[in-house]
């Protein structure tokens, strides 16, 4: 159970990081 919690947290963090990449890219797109 604790492994699932730890791995879920890691997945959420990486998913947020990928979204963040997309967000920073979109911000540039919206300015050009």
């Amino acid at each position, binding site marked *: 159970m604790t492994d699932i919690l730890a791995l879920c947290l890691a997945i959420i*963090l990486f998913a947020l990081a990928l979204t*963040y*990449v997309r967000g*920073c890219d979109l911000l540039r797109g919206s300015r050009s």
Partner: protein
Amino acid sequence: MSLNGWLQISLFIAAVLLLAKPMGSYLARVFERRRTFLDPLLVPCERLLYRMTGIKPEEEMRWTEYAIAMLFFSAATLLLTYIVERLQHLLPLNPQHLPAVESALALNTAISFTTNTNWQAYTPESTMSYLTQMLGLATHNFWSAAVGMALAVAFVRGIARRETKTLGNFWVDLTRGTLWVLLPISIVFSLALASQGVVQNFRPYDTAKLMEPQKVTGSDGKTTTVTTQTIAQGPVASQEAIKMLGTNGGGFFNANSAHPFENPTALTNFLQMLSIFLLPAGLAIALGQMVGSPKHGWAVLAAMVVLWFAGTFTCYWAESQPNPMLHGVDQHVSMMQSGGNMEGKEVRFGIANSALFATVTTDASCGAVNGMHDSFMPLGGMVPMANILLGEIVFGGVGAGLYGMLVFVVLAVFIAGLMVGRTPEYLGKKIEAYDVQMAMLYLLIFPFIILGFSAVTVLMPNLGLSSLTNHGPHGLSEILYAYTSATGNNGSAFAGLNANTHWYNYSLGIAMFMGRFMMIVPMLAIAGSLAGKKIVPASAGTFPVTTPLFTILLVSVILIVGALTFFPALSLGPILEHLLLRAGHTF
């Protein structure tokens, strides 16, 4: 302070500066895929790796592709470390029969080593098997440093290239950084360390009989007599080399580089400090060569040296002062004693080399320690914390220091442009709104994580404050240092804080993750933006980035941004503690 101490410090920085140019030239050749003397040996290995993994080295990546490749690589290696930690009791090379690492600690450690932080909320010799140390942790010492170098090189390409969308190939940069730079230097360095007495074996721990039995009172109040001491062993030399060279800092033993098996002599101490600065100094010179302006590399390196000196001087001065609480005790330097504050320091290193090590390890994002920062005088302990709070751009971590410094360069050039009323330019590239937005995002995320987590933690008596062993401003310093060290991906501990709790393991894990990846992304976005720009010819109004004026402006921007952001927190921690110590209060 003594002349002897200053001579040793001068020798250290002279060695760094002497090695910077050859190291920088070599790094530039490696990442520009020019010929090096190691090619006959390593090119076949490189080709084999690409063939096995299906990598096409000629394929270029946009900044988003580069970032995503880096994130997937980090996720895969983080998972590997987590699995190894959780299954170590079933795996070989565990002569002490250590159990599986608890899940929250395993995640914290996996994030810690993936992000080049090497924060250790555990005692390595009683927690990690030899296999975990090698396969789970030492591998990350190579990978995370190689990732840092790849990212810095991608940023430099963004500056050097014109009207292109790509920054290189992440997998090629990762492979070449590991094969051409980290592995060869680590092998030579490991042998040098082993020659000085750093251990390298797979033996079970030794047990020594004490000459004098010791009475020890446990937390339950019971007194027992101890007659033996366990002496931990392990493959230390091979891990120690990359620990320092890759600015990782995670010790094989709990005492880190204060342990005589990790750092036995004055020579190993000197080499360890030198290896921390070797690649960051070389990368600054490589920057100059890769963008076609060697003087710019030296100007950036000069800013690093100025800030390094300020930290070293302050720390050495603070640690050399007599402790005002020890009335009537002779604390002056003499032939018989070091003088000043020797608490938490190794006699074989003394005050100068402990203060220098503390400054160097926190200027860079290393985090190895040869003395306990918690035992430094308040202002001496403030220096390591302030170094990390500045963003670890004073030499900095391998790669991370350079790209962090380049974000400050973008900001400095922007401010210079504002002062003269011109569109700011950096090496012929116009700095526009998007670049400054990303630079500010990079700079603001850092204090947001540190101060946010610290503030939440001090408001929670059961989860946060119960782990403290000191109260008052010193307790605040311990919490602030922990989140600073985690977010800055430094990994050194102030000590005095029991961080192996669920709250600290998870919150510090999140801080390490955000401090690494949430700062890399805007940095790469700037690089991608710069790569797509045209080169504007220099004119009379262009702000030169090769002069002492540029170095002064860069140092000023770094200090002003750092001071404005963190001065209130520092004033409630180490500065208040310093003033109260003078008034006779300790914590």
